[in-house]
């Protein structure tokens, strides 16, 4: 049985993204929020831990290393089977992070980009699906609250299509703000044009990112699993996601959810 409904598949194929309202139950959201808070406290207390620390954006990379609940989210049953269906059974993980966007930052229009166009050369991206990036919202995200902006349908544009120049991300004609309630998830094709928007609200935006690719793709720099995380990957699927199985052959792992 398909994890994606026909409507979801058609929407994703045409637009390049999909919203899953209520992906996390209230109890799951509370547990994940607790785990993310713990991770954030540890990260703030130890500046030696890697990450981005600039006024408009804070990023804790390799977030699965911080807490088992954040590791388990990589296979969440409301999201992962859908992405696996879109990428194929040879799915792998490329990177994972916790994004924190405080109010007041200034982001200009050059923030529009695709994840794969320049970073994954050699592939005709308009006809391929190399990455799908999933975001779990830990807070409500309003239109002025730093929502991710996407330009629907651009994932099928030729690779040399210029990105329109705009002064701020919000001025891009046709941009859709992915507003949602806490506990929602959304995901988009890595070739879809997207950008963060300015957080002009009063609430810090908090999202967890899980970026999936194929098991034969390398993980993002400094995202190779630690020995501790690798040891915690006890199922074939978890090992495949962490790049611990043969890249180009061998059986693909079955869904374990």
């Amino acid at each position, binding site marked *: 049985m398909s994890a994606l409904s026909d409507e979801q598949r058609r929407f994703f194929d045409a637009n390049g993204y999909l919203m899953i309202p209520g992906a996390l139950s209230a109890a799951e959201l509370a547990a994940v929020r607790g785990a993310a808070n713990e991770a954030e406290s540890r990260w703030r207390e130890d500046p030696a831990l890697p990450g981005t620390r600039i006024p408009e954006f804070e990023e804790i990379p390799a977030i699965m290393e911080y807490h088992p609940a954040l590791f388990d989210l990589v296979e969440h049953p409301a999201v992962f089977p859908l992405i696996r269906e879109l990428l194929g059974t040879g799915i792998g993980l490329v990177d994972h992070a916790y994004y924190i966007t405080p109010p007041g930052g200034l982001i200009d229009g050059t923030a529009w980009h695709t994840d794969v166009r320049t970073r994954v050369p*050699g592939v*005709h991206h308009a006809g*391929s699906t190399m990455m799908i990036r999933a975001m779990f919202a830990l807070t409500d995200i309003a239109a002025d609250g730093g929502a991710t902006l996407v330009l629907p349908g651009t994932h099928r544009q030729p690779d040399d299509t210029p990105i329109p120049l705009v002064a701020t991300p919000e001025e891009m004609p046709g941009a859709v703000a992915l507003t949602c309630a806490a506990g929602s998830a959304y995901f988009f094709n890595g070739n879809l044009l997207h950008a963060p928007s300015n957080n002009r609200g009063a609430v810090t935006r908090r999202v967890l990112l899980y970026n999936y690719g194929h098991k*034969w793709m*390398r993980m993002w720099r400094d995202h190779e699993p630690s020995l501790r995380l690798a040891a915690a990957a006890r199922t074939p699927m978890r090992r495949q996601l962490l*790049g611990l199985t043969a890249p*180009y052959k061998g059986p693909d792992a079955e869904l374990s959810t």
Partner: protein
Amino acid sequence: MSQAMSEEQRLFFNTQGYLVVPDALSIEELATLRLEADAVEARWRTDLSLPGVRRPDLEQVLGIMEHGPALFDLLEHPRIFPLVRALLGPDVMMLDHDYFITPPGATIPQGWHFDFDLPGVDHPRSRLMVKVFYVLADIPPDGGATLVLPGSHITPGGTVLPNSEVPEKLPGALPMNLPAGSAYLINDRTYHSAGNNCSSVHRRLLIYTYGHKWMRMWDEYRPSPELAALAVTPQRRQLLGLTDPYGPPVAWEET
């Protein structure tokens, strides 16, 4: 764009999926490589702990660059590597490297295959890999030459092409029976097979397969600490997968 590849070569590779480079190796280079390859082969035959394939129809010394400086430097051969770079781009990286020895009498039933058929990739319009074969000994017409099916690289992923009990009998098959010192290149979607070696001589090939640095190297080809230590240039480090997979590629000198 690299000037190493002529427009004629580029057009030929783009349309046919392979390219032959006669006399890729000078006589001196060929002699040096043969010496190193012979020494490796002798060591590999006596030390069964060294990795590889030991079958009647194929002997494969795995990770050949680990075994000698000339074999390591062949990675950036000045006549061939610029062609690879022109085809793959500046983010080129090594995927695997072997010494293939095909003894007389080897038969390869149903040997035709694509190297890659990867879900999610628009294969006809993508180029993930270029495989280079260096010929170390003359390959006679019945000597197990690699067979390629010209033009097959533009077939979509999932395409099933005919196979053949006798590889040479596939209609359109083109054998790479070439003299020692030649090189030939194919891409990841060029349908190919080893041929049956009905001659009295071993077929000897060095194979260097290149991809992009965002791709995973086969686990068994990850460089040893000793080889990694020998990669003293940024270019060589990128080729061995020792740089940022998704960051900017290194700069290459035009040749």
